[in-house]
């Protein structure tokens, strides 16, 4: 029995060690962002150093970081909002008023989510150029809404279907209208699911690169495009690159840490709970 316990502790330590190892590159990047450029670019790597905030100052003040951040926030925020406005009512209807075709509708919605962006990027480029949507926030919001909408429909339907049907029925017996039923009964109950959906939409939109890169230049370019300008960071730019990269990735990492439990369900469109 004692041997068993020691083995258990060893496994726990091993798990934590692997977790630390997997996380180490990120930790290293964050550490590097607090180094001076001279400390960042050494062989062998510097472990003990005098931390500095200089890189963050430079990244924030000199590199138009805030312009890109604003673009990302606008695009992420609006595309999530529009996807919710279109998707939540659809999910609600598919969950509570299913019809013979609903199953097919869900499958079709899923297939639009799985459409590879490379399959549509050329016509989108042509259409966007012709309609002056190229390099605009509006254009990207349109497309990211398309990416978020199937996610909203699948996730929210799965959350709605899990709600206690009795409370909804009770509201109907009390004569609540569809809107009242939704506002006062369904929405409060589905709020955790809604938050998870919003977080997942934000994660996907925030991190998207392919569409943003091909359909913007500078005016509407989000952070994912900005960070690629450090693609060939050499010598004097490592610490600044790390600061910019940390600032870029941080919001999603924090959001994702908070939504760990719902992450799986959202990622598999409710197929795995």
């Amino acid at each position, binding site marked *: 029995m004692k041997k068993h316990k020691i083995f258990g502790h060893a496994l726990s330590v091993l798990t934590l060690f692997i977790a630390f190892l997997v996380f180490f590159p990120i930790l290293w990047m964050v550490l*590097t962002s607090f180094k001076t450029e001279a400390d960042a670019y050494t062989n062998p790597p510097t472990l003990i150093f005098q931390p500095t905030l200089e890189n963050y100052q430079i990244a924030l003040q000199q590199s138009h970081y805030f312009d890109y951040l604003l673009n990302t926030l606008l695009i992420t925020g609006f595309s999530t909002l529009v996807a919710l406005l279109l998707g939540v009512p659809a999910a609600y209807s598919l969950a509570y008023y299913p019809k013979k075709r609903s199953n097919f509708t869900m499958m079709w919605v899923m297939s639009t989510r799985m459409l590879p962006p490379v399959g549509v990027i050329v016509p989108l480029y042509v259409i966007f150029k012709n309609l002056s949507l190229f390099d605009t926030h509006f254009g990207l919001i349109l497309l990211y809404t398309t990416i978020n909408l199937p996610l909203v429909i699948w996730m929210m339907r799965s959350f709605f279907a899990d709600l206690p049907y009795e409370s909804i029925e009770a509201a*109907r017996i009390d004569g609540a209208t569809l809107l009242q039923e939704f506002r006062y009964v369904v929405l409060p109950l589905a709020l955790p699911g809604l938050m998870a959906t919003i977080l997942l939409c934000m994660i996907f939109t925030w991190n998207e690169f392919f569409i943003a890169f091909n359909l913007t230049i500078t005016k509407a370019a989000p952070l994912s495009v900005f*960070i690629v300008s450090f693609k060939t960071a050499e010598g004097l730019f490592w610490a600044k690159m790390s600061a910019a990269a940390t600032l870029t990735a941080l919001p999603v990492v924090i959001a994702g840490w908070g939504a760990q439990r719902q992450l799986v369900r959202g990622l598999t469109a409710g197929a795995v709970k």
Partner: protein
Amino acid sequence: MRLQAVMAAPNPLFNPFRWLRARLSLVSPAIIYLICLTQIPVAFTLFYSLSNWNFLRPANTRFVALGNYLDFVQDVDTLSIIRNTLSFASSVVILSLVFGMILALLLNRQFFGRSLARTLLITPFLIMPTVSAVMWKNMLFNPTFGLLNAFFGLFSTNATTDWLNQYPMMSVVIIVTWEWTPFMMLILLAGLQSLAQEHIEAAQMDGAGPLEIFFYVILPHLRRYIEIGVLLELLFILNIFGEIFVTTTGGPANYTTTLTFNIYLEAFKRWNVGRASAYGIIAVILANLITIFFLRIIRGNDQSKEAA
């Protein structure tokens, strides 16, 4: 399930007008939106794919029927692109499945620091892919100042591997596996947590060892989860662009040019709209095939739940 039971029973509150209104007015906007932004562009892609439209020579544009698709079959580069795509996708999926399984098994125990370990392990999946790529390229793969060579330098005096040039595909696979292992881990962990402990205990009573339990109890239970994880990951992996663009730009030569990356090169480097569109249609067909398998599994899940 509760819902399905309710729907099956005659609903005394059923009101056909309200039902019709809810059905028509609530789902339609989303469907119309999705049709406009996905089906119409695909139709355009299909249309372009039948022409030889090139942005650099727009005057020469004419209908070439299936010419672009024939090119795909005949082109000398096609073989290497298919090979790259297959080796890239299969390596990442298999590696992340193996590592994800190990990590899920390790995390599926109660121990001090478990949630910390899980939090650290899912982080690579949350980091913006272009940030990951920039980080790996500059800070880990750099031949003189990178962490990887610093690490190997502890054991050998001559650790000067130029990872991205000497082992381009392997390097990209390492980055993407690092990013996607957490995804597989989370799905498998969800699967492990849905496995009743009694099954394992019963097998232990019967005298099964850890390996036997894994292969005869755990693995059969995880089958659905593995299928869902593999197919979903495959769909996402086939779309990978940023990591390749940042690290190798498809090179050296075309060693890391996948189907997706090649479409980008055709469209935005060679401005060959017709050809890029034809390849795009091939990518759409491929993704649809995988999606069909995926949906079959989900539907199988629903049916087995109803039967239970």
